[in-house]
């Protein structure tokens, strides 16, 4: 059984997962203009009003997951070139400001500026980064399609 993230950093990272695509939030699609149309069609196919609502909601949820999936895919950017090659490039700040920054501060700023490129280097390529970013979304797709299938096949 997967135990989830173990380290503090891992837990912090995973706590932001749902914020990126918003799929953990349950959505009711009653106000969606398509909802009424879909429901009407399901009713015409012999589904009860309640079953038709559930099926329409499930179909619109599938579409929402697909859209979020596409958004994540297309939003992936990749950059392995560090913004700064050398922490010494920040030294002028130290001199000009008459030493308001300690060397530890400079190291922190250097790391911060280069954190994206160093993270991207771990993925190896944009394809690798896309795959790694989309992998956690599998469960949303699985749940959405499974709920849709259940709602449509519920009426024998």
């Amino acid at each position, binding site marked *: 059984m997967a135990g989830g993230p173990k380290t503090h950093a891992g837990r912090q990272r995973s706590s932001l997962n749902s914020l990126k695509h918003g799929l953990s939030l349950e959505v009711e699609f009653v106000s969606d203009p*398509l909802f009424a149309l879909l429901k009407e069609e399901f009713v*015409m196919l012999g589904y009860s009003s309640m079953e038709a609502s559930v099926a329409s909601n499930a*179909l619109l949820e599938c579409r929402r997951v697909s859209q979020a999936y596409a958004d994540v*895919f297309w939003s992936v950017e990749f950059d392995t070139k560090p913004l700064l090659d050398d922490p010494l490039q920040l030294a002028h700040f130290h001199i000009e400001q008459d030493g308001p920054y300690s060397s530890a501060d400079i190291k922190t700023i250097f790391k911060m500026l280069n954190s994206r490129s160093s993270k991207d280097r771990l993925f190896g390529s944009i394809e690798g980064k896309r*795959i790694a970013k*989309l992998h956690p979304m599998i469960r949303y797709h*699985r749940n959405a399609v499974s709920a849709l299938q259940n709602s*449509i*096949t519920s009426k024998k």
Partner: protein
Amino acid sequence: MVKELSALNEREKMLRELVDEVEEPSAVTLMLVEQMADALYWARQHAIDKELIIYRGMQKAIGQAASDWSDPSFSELKAVLEQGIGSKAYNDFELKLNREVGLTIADLRARSMMDNMQLISQADDLIQRQVRNIRGLQKCIDLIDFKKRLVKKMDLELARLETEVAALPGIRDA
């Protein structure tokens, strides 16, 4: 083989082809078909990404093999691999690779797969999920289509029954 998908065009093309197969399009069937087109598109896209990850790993493996050979660029390597086994470019490259670094293309591929095992496994998971999505959506379309035909058949039966009943002498006629 790996080809860059021209994203929107490819998806639109798939969608149009699938919609053409639908006998009586309705909002429900069109949305199901749209989801299927998406799943098909993503499955193909992930397969391409998986192959590109392997190619990049192969290029890295060449760089890691100690030699004086100036490594091929990624686009050069990709072009050669896309020509496929048996092509002149592929055979020439393999000969050169063997001579310069003592490796075969299969060796490179194996090294790349080992280096990128986690990403490749994740790509496989994504492809498998999309394939399952397609199967699930297919079942939904089948059922909706069956229901439509059933409803139509029942309407016809009812109409025939009504005609027959209307043709029968009623109690009032007796």
